[in-house]
């Protein structure tokens, strides 16, 4: 990237105009140098600067394409049939087309986070000034922006510094998106390299967004003891007016909070949220309420509980305004990215807007000034609540029974349902007065309402499911720890060694959306399995919420049972989607704090370090969005594997290693320069699991790294083998590939495993100082 920044410092300058002392001239924008580290080889990397690293990863984990359909329909040459080796009119084949679609998804995700960050930073600079200092952890965090520093070489210290970094991310997203144009890139592996670049850029965009909001809004700063707060349908006091906020960009929600406080109305109005705005709202004020993840939108609105609905951006159901109108709740859109066809009333007096909404002159408004949103939403909620009386649109039991009698048994609802739920069976039973089947569908319903759209007689089937479960839903109330933000340097100092040596078996990051195959309980189950086993469990976004929505027999949620510190057995809610880079950042900081590696613009070396040493695995069990795709891509470029749930296969490309292909699993020993076989660790980079059992066992396998000490490998093998036995009912048949020395074998399994290894003609191997980079061989670099 060309950075047109110049800074001149002159101690004394004599000119015709006179003598100037201590003269500083700055042209363009610069970030002050803060970190005492040399600048690495790839500051502000272009699309191709890390291409060689990408190709190393992609040769180990080649793409396996799973096309949705046979055709491409992206331009007017088409549709083009690309089946079985055919090429389209532009010359692309199926592999290039699939990788192009993956790149499009990653660009959408990266653009969304970068745009989110740009709006936040712009807003916060306007409010606080560009010199407002960044502070994500006070004295406990020295490296504020590990991802940004790693990628760009910059160490931002103020909001204004973030502005400069965003110029770079916007430029890269634009370049990447242009590669998807007809007649641009033609090679699938180069497309894939660009996907990884988009993922890396996405991580920077997210990090900037969270740095800005943590700093300016005083969110928890790497606080392991961030307060517990309420989550669930039943958290709202419905005798009060309720404002519902949905989305990801928190400023309007903070303004609602502040308006209520400033006008002594706080406590008289409930402010509740869905999706990441909810999480971030509770980071701002733990007294705010979280209703649930993305899939809770329709059901909660239809209940009639919200009196005003405020939507910002991302993952919002796009026709919510229709349901808002049905329950008589005014609708306020607050983002230029999501105008919903509403009149822009930003510059109108608040009194007029409030009047128009209360009298239903308009169903909703667009207000692009967060402060005004705070006032309008609060006043409207208070005034309209007594009139609305929480009018909902769930049908009565009688209406469900009568409606069900009209069913034509066409099966369209089930054929539209992503989880193939037996809705026709539930309708049949409901027609006879039995709603138990509808109620049983509640857990597995992802709230998409495709069943309703498909129904030829317009039965509100999603509402049928919810009404049948109403008694249960209304009582749902759980505890979630508010998002803590960054991992402290002191925590990294404590766990860096045990993680790299393998003695803390791994870091499991549960991230992503709520497109679950069997409800959110599976996420809680996965999380607890690893917390019990002394892994470090981190979570963000909808996954962090879903994990909270399960209680044990003592009525406790996972956040009440496990500590929030980044250590063995910790369960950490990191925050919202844009908090994900704190997880990547922890891995990056291990390389810096534990191994003293330079971070600045040193991406390849640090990714190589993480890939070979840090046993981290991402799990996006309900991954749905393009943002989830770009988040995963950011982890891949760091060499961190990601497992998705079964629906994640629809990302239509996996990155799979082949464990039996020995030649793929060699590294350089940095001490000697020799090539050493290390086994298939980690075996895959992107993988869709069919069942939660498969995901759990694979996670325990994917945390193994080439650098594990024998003690560490023995611990990891213990967990993997134990889980495999319990969930598969067998010993793993590829066990011999993961045992390097007899000392790797867990003591309690020694005899049995030795017999197993003997059958496989197993031999001991060296444990190298592993690297995929020739330049890291010490004799070469000397």
């Amino acid at each position, binding site marked *: 990237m060309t950075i047109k920044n110049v800074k001149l410092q002159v101690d004394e300058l004599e000119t015709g105009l006179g003598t100037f002392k201590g003269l500083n001239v700055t042209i363009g924008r610069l970030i002050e140098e803060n970190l005492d580290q040399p600048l690495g080889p790839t500051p502000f990397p272009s699309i191709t600067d890390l291409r060689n690293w990408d190709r190393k990863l992609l040769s180990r984990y080649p793409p396996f394409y799973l096309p949705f359909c046979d055709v491409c329909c992206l331009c007017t040459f088409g549709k083009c049939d690309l089946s079985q080796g055919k090429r389209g009119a532009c010359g692309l084949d199926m592999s290039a087309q699939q990788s192009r679609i993956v790149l499009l998804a990653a660009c959408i995700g990266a653009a969304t986070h970068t745009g989110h960050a740009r709006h936040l930073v712009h807003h916060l600079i306007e409010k606080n000034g560009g010199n407002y200092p960044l502070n994500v952890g006070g004295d406990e965090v020295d490296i504020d922006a590990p991802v940004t520093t790693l990628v760009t070489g910059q160490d931002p210290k103020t909001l204004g510094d973030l502005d400069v970094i965003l110029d770079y991310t916007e430029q890269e997203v634009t370049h990447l998106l242009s590669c998807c144009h007809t007649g641009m890139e033609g090679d699938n592996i180069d497309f894939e390299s660009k996907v990884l670049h988009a993922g890396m850029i996405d991580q920077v965009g997210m990090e900037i967004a969270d740095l800005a909001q943590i700093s300016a809004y005083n969110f928890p700063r790497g606080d392991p003891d961030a307060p517990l707060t309420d989550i669930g349908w039943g958290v709202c006091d419905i005798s009060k007016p309720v404002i519902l906020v949905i989305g990801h960009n928190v400023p309007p929600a903070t303004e609602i909070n502040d308006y209520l406080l400033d006008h002594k109305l706080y406590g008289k109005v409930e402010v509740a949220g869905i999706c990441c705005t909810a999480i971030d709202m509770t980071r701002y004020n733990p007294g705010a309420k979280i209703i649930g993840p993305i899939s809770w939108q329709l059901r909660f609105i239809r209940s009639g509980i919200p009196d005003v609905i405020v939507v910002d951006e991302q993952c919002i159901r796009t026709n919510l305004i229709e349901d808002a109108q049905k329950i008589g709740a005014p609708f306020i859109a607050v983002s230029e990215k999501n105008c919903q066809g509403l009149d822009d009333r930003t510059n109108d007096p608040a009194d007029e807007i409030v009047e128009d909404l209360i009298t239903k002159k308009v169903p909703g408004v667009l207000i692009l000034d967060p402060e005004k949103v705070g006032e309008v939403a609060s006043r409207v909620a208070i005034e309209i609540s007594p009139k609305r009386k929480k009018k909902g649109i769930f049908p009565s039991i009688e209406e469900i029974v009568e409606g069900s009698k009209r069913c034509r048994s066409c099966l369209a609802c089930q*054929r539209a349902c992503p989880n193939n739920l037996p809705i026709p069976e539930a309708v049949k039973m409901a027609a006879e007065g039995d709603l138990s089947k509808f109620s049983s569908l509640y857990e597995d319903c992802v709230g998409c309402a495709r069943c309703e759209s498909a129904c030829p007689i317009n039965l509100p089937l999603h509402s049928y499911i919810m009404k049948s479960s109403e008694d249960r839903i209304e009582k749902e109330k759980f505890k979630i720890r508010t998002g803590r933000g960054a991992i402290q340097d002191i925590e990294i100092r404590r766990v860096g060694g045990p993680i790299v040596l393998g003695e803390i078996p791994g870091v499991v990051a549960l991230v992503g959306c709520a497109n679950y195959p069997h409800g959110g309980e599976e996420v809680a189950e996965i999380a607890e399995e690893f917390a019990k086993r002394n892994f470090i469990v981190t979570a963000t976004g909808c996954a962090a919420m879903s994990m909270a929505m399960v209680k044990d027999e003592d009525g406790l949620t996972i956040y009440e049972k496990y500590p929030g510190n980044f250590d063995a057995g910790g369960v950490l809610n990191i925050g919202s989607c844009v908090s994900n880079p704190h997880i990547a950042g922890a891995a990056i900081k291990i390389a810096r704090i534990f191994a003293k590696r330079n971070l600045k613009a040193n991406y390849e070396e640090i990714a190589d370090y993480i890939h070979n040493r840090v046993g981290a695995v991402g799990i996006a069990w309900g991954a749905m969005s393009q943002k989830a795709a770009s988040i995963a891509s950011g982890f891949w470029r760091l060499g961190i594997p990601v497992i998705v749930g079964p629906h994640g296969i*629809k990302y239509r490309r996996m990155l799979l290693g082949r464990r039996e292909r020995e030649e793929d699993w060699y590294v350089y020993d940095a001490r000697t320069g020799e090539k050493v076989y290390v086994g298939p660790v980690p075996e895959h980079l992107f993988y869709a*699991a*069919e069942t939660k059992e498969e995901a759990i066992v694979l996670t325990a396998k994917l945390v193994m790294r080439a650098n594990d000490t024998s003690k560490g490998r023995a611990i990891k093998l213990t967990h993997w083998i134990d889980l495999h036995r319990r969930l598969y009912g*067998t010993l793993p048949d590829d066990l011999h590939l993961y045992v390097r020395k007899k000392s790797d074998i867990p003591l309690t399994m020694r005899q049995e495993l030795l017999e197993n290894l003997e059958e496989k003609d197993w031999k001991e191997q060296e444990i190298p100082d592993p690297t995929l980079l020739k330049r890291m061989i010490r004799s070469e670099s000397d």
Partner: protein
Amino acid sequence: MSIAEPWQTAEIPGPKKAFVVSKTIVVSSMIKRSKRPLLVVGHESLKEDIDGEMPIDYMIRLAEKGKIPIVATAHIIGEFNKRGYSKASSFSLIEIGERLKDPDWMGLDGEGQYDLVLMMGFPYYMSWLVLSGLKHYALRGDKYLTTISLDRYYQPHASWSLPNLSLEKWEENISSMMKELEAE
């Protein structure tokens, strides 16, 4: 709904769609003719009850009658062992899919690639995507691998697929295949 429409309404495959198995003899004949068949069984083979049995039990019998090796996906290898069938191999669906795509893979026994792959017991969308991957990439010489979907929903990305069927009809179809495999 026609029996040969994709079960998920929006799953439109494109120009190349599976032939519908209207007579089970088509499948049993292909199994008999195949030199290297493979049966891939997923976790949904444990989902439905057929008079005290499950589809997995039918798959075991089908494999034995057709002399077809089985790959058990996800976590279900133990279920085969519990039923006294110890010959199944364990791979995940995408791992076996990726290997079946590769013309150089030497198979479970090191004897070479498979020429016929039958699949049963998967979430509809997982099956359709893996079958699509095989349809486009699993070359065998100058032809593509033949795949058959034995799930009870029409799978357009297979070479051949059972149509959309009730559980009862599905049971009849699989039983009929087994009888045909037993016959000389």
